[in-house]
């Protein structure tokens, strides 16, 4: 007999990132690297072979001095739900190494299952997936700080942001001990959320009205989970990736930069969602 693992409604973990607050300082990137045993090389300046589960993009408004403006956009894995969990990467992985969990809404990546075909990387429009082109090597002595909660990856596999799922696992351990069925909001926060000095990142269960992220985003399940918050937008919403990372900005040009629009279309306009 099959049963849904969830007790009551399933969870759908997601993020709201306030770009008005984000300063592009990079604390989230490094918090992520430190939390998830992310390796580093002597030269990391070629960003196309530099593993950063959380990456900060710099957006410019294209105007010239002194009307120019910039905005930073932190990009973790967007944990696309796509259509019923068939996110771009999950549906293409030939070996079931990446999967979508109906229980948490998290897109998993199991590196020991992955054999490195990199199809998922081609499928991901956010470049949130990274390949281990090299063996991970820590300078002598530095492997001491590696965390046992996240397994270091070997050469030749794809890795990506897991929404610090190991923290959920640990919180769940505690929950069992305390006889709780659900993991409390505060007990499961990602490393980037916790570190962000500007408090720009809010993480939690988008399905749970008590969670702050739900209150900010107010997802509209009848409308492809789009946000009811006028300041909010999602990256490439029109492709139907149906992401769980929402961005907030009071600046129209920033919101427009979040998706592709034809000249005449107005920001936020949405053609029919695919799938």
């Amino acid at each position, binding site marked *: 007999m099959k049963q849904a693992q969830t007790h009551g409604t399933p969870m759908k973990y997601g993020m709201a990132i306030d770009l008005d607050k984000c300063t592009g300082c990079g604390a989230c990137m490094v918090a992520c*690297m430190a939390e998830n045993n992310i390796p580093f090389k002597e030269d990391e*300046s070629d960003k196309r072979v530099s593993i950063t589960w959380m990456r900060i993009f710099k957006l410019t408004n294209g105007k010239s001095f*002194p009307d120019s403006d910039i905005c930073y956009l932190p990009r973790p894995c967007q944990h696309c739900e796509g259509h019923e969990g068939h996110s771009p990467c999950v549906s293409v992985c030939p070996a079931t190494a990446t999967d979508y969990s109906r229980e948490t809404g998290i897109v998993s990546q199991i590196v020991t299952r992955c054999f490195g075909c990199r199809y998922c990387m081609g499928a991901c429009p956010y470049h949130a997936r990274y390949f281990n082109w090299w063996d991970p090597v820590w300078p002598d002595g530095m492997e001491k700080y590696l965390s046992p909660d996240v397994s270091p990856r070997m050469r030749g596999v794809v890795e990506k942001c897991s929404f610090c799922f190991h923290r959920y696992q640990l919180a769940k351990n505690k929950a069992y001990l305390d006889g709780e069925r659900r993991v409390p909001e505060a007990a499961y926060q990602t490393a980037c959320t916790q570190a962000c000095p500007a408090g720009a990142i809010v993480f939690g269960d988008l399905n749970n009205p008590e969670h702050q992220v739900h209150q900010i985003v107010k997802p509209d399940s009848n409308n492809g989970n789009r946000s009811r918050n006028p300041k909010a937008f999602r990256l490439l919403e029109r492709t139907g990736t149906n992401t769980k990372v929402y961005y907030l900005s009071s600046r129209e040009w920033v919101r427009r930069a979040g998706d592709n629009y034809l000249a005449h279309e107005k920001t936020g306009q949405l053609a029919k969602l695919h799938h």
Partner: protein
Amino acid sequence: MKVDRRSFLSFVIGGAAGTALSPLPWKLMDDSSIWSQMWPWTPVPPDGEVVYEDSTCTLCPGGCGISVRKVDSRAVKIEGQSGHPVNDGSICILGLSGLQMLYGPTRIKSPMKRIGERGEGKWQKISWDEAFAILTEKLTDIRDKGEAHTVAALAGSDSGTVPALIQRFMAAYGSPNFMRSPSYRDVDELTVKALFGADGRTGFDVENADYVLSFGSGFVDGWGSPVRMFKAASLWKEKDIPVVQVEPRLSNSAAKATRWIPINPGTEADLALGIAAVMVANGIADTGDVSGLSGWENDLLANYEPQKVAQTTGIDAAVIVEVAKGFARADRPLALCGRGKAQTAVSLRETAAVYILNALTGNINQEGGMWAIPEADYIQWPDVATDNLASAGLDQPRLDGAGTGKYTDARYLTNRLADSVNGGGPYPLQVLLVAGANPCHYLPDTQHVKAAFARIPFIVSFSSFQDETAAMADLLMPDHVYLERYEDVPVGAGLVQQMIGLSKPVVSPQFNTRHLGEVLIMTAKAMGGSIADAFPWDDYETCLEETLAEKWDTLMETGVWVRADTDPVAGSIQLAGLDAPAVQAEGDVNSFPLLLVPYDSIQLTSGYMGEAPFMIKAVSDTVIQGTDGFIEINPLTASGVGLGEGDRATLTTPRGEALVRVHLFEGIQPGVLAMVRGLGHTAYDGYLAGKGVNVNELIGPVEDPSTGFDAAWGIRAKLDKA
């Protein structure tokens, strides 16, 4: 019978069939894939019991509380300490990288003495006993010759027990030459003294201000206590507080401000005074706290009326008036001073102008305003009983000339050290002790500084890392890093209250290093006599505990001691310093048509600490690519020189030249070039060394005649296609 080929063939076929029906091929296939899943050369972090230990971060002056996650005896992650008055759970990129410094390969792992040429990097490991012997012998010889004053010490800061012990050691030994790394603190202290007539520092109540006017202060680029400022900036967003950022470049702070006002570099003081003039002229200034205004009012109105200021600053007069009114009419307006991270001094004129601007709002020592408060004064040690040799030495003038002649008000003029060593000083320097400082990387005109260091007969470095200065040393006596030691951390950094944090040993020392405090006490004891008497403590921990007295328990419990109800040093200010001349950029306009200004990034320490690999990894590819460093330039200026995105160019200033690549940026004023501070290391390892250009090598100190501090804010430059 003879085994013919057919029989052999069938034997092989039989073998194949048998093999296929045995586990051999299948298990091998499975196991080889499992082997690839756990390659022996991919590390497996050992599991264990998880504990969190709180401490205080000392990687920058910010004084954040940290909470270190440990698995058994290993520290695996540094997180912000929730509930801490400074950072409440958050943490910055540098603080997060701490473990890479603790466990990093650039640690100095034991005491060493130089065996090769200076700077050659040939060292010999020695025991601590030998190290002590070498040091004490050296110091004793010099002292016995009556030349105690020719020994100097350079520390990162002068607050807290460890620097105090260094100062005490110098006093007992008999040298007036204690110095600290130059920073905005120098001019801040001096200005507070000049305006308030008392010793103290400024504090800024950013959380409660309702209008913020920042003169180039990088409130999200590392100014003040960085994490506190990040939080404040978000608070301002939430409360819709107007934040005006005045600087020539669209910095991250400018981007976070509600309004960015580009200004001609180096004319901030004029704008401040212009705004003051508008306020006075319109009678919206609150002159209650300001004495001496009447004598100055006419000059102010005459010299700084909006049109004139518009001329110098390049800001539209209407804008000046608008800002002045907005600022003056706010309930709790606050003006910030100190460029970027405020790691360098600015001119007395600029500092005074901004502080007076604060005063003219009547918001001094008020909620949301600027405060002038005394340093926490908790180090109460009996005066040193100096012997004759010491007294003689102490009577000598300082090498840097601070406190005498035209520099009476300055306490330290570290920026003049290089000159005096290179022949400008009253007497030759024989020994230099360096602790928590890396002058050979961040002092302006670094080449000049290195040349000076090359001439110092004997240099002792207490650095924990193989930094540029340690590379120039003769004797290395490595200190623990902050995660391995006890230390009191008095926090200034623009806080409006007195605060002391406590660093605790989170892990046992990883290498054969010694606590600097310990080393000083032991050296003193080894030298005996009055010097030993000045250090009555058995060890540093006792010293610390006795010094902190009743605060000790609080610190051990909560990790931080705060005194909120600190009395300001004075309630009102006396106008001063405004007649001081402006500090100009070095170099003449004709041969150097452009202006080079350094900028600060929170992603680079640009201080004593070298950047950890994680930080460099986070740096954008428009700042470093491979080993190439970039300068930011306005597309107009670039096309003028015939340069496109990523092109290589030679950047020349009166002080030096460097090969750079250009990044076109619309957020920078035409004619101005910006280069990030903190890169271009020559020491450390391949993760840091050789990346980018050290901007300090291109910019020389420009002395502010009214203080003696280096107040250079940029330098003239030219750019040629390479």
